[in-house]
């Protein structure tokens, strides 16, 4: 049984570009949450999806958007990338004892 899988594992983008990160939750898990972990910080909650709808949202600008598909997989989209968006992006399925993926390391140059 695969756990939470994220793709890609690493990504380099230029300021102003747009990026899409993908997540497949653990089998049978219908809730997906996204977190941003900046260097030296703990993960910060971005938003959570359940039944294809955004259920909760953290303190992130509208440049951060998401989507959940009928098979429970999810995407995180970030528009107009800033240097400060460089971070590890983590996807977690269900909760609160959430199962995390290995993350996508996004570098904005």
């Amino acid at each position: 049984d695969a756990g939470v899988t994220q793709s890609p594992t690493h990504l380099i983008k230029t300021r102003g570009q747009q990026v899409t990160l993908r997540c497949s939750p653990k089998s049978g898990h219908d809730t997906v949450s996204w977190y941003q972990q900046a260097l030296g910080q703990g993960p910060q909650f971005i938003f959570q999806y359940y039944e294809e709808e955004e259920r909760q949202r953290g303190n992130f600008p509208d440049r951060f958007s998401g989507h959940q598909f009928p098979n429970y997989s999810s995407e995180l989209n970030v528009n107009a990338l800033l240097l400060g968006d460089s971070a590890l992006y983590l996807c977690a399925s269900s909760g609160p004892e959430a199962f995390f993926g290995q993350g996508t390391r996004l570098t904005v140059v």
Partner: protein
Amino acid sequence: DQQVKQNSPSLSVQEGRISILNCDYTNSMFDYFLWYKKYPAEGPTFLISISSIKDKNEDGRFTVFLNKSAKHLSLHIVPSQPGDSAVYFCAAVTGTASKLTFGTGTRLQVTL
């Protein structure tokens, strides 16, 4: 506004000894607390949790203590093993919401 704080960025402990990792919180609405362990290039892994109605939860070598009046929790690892070397995050949840509020983490190094 850091609602969950881990004031020790790092901790070094000898193998076989006790490791004590501390966490403080400010939001009195938090009612469920968790510890996660993170190795480099991996996502956080759930370790142990405690509900606010308890003051202690034990799982093998890991014990979490909660002091609600002090808004403080701690994770004890006994005995510490080299494989325990990782970054440990404290996290908190309010009610039925599953949004996790994390601390900044403590890097534990267990030396031989």
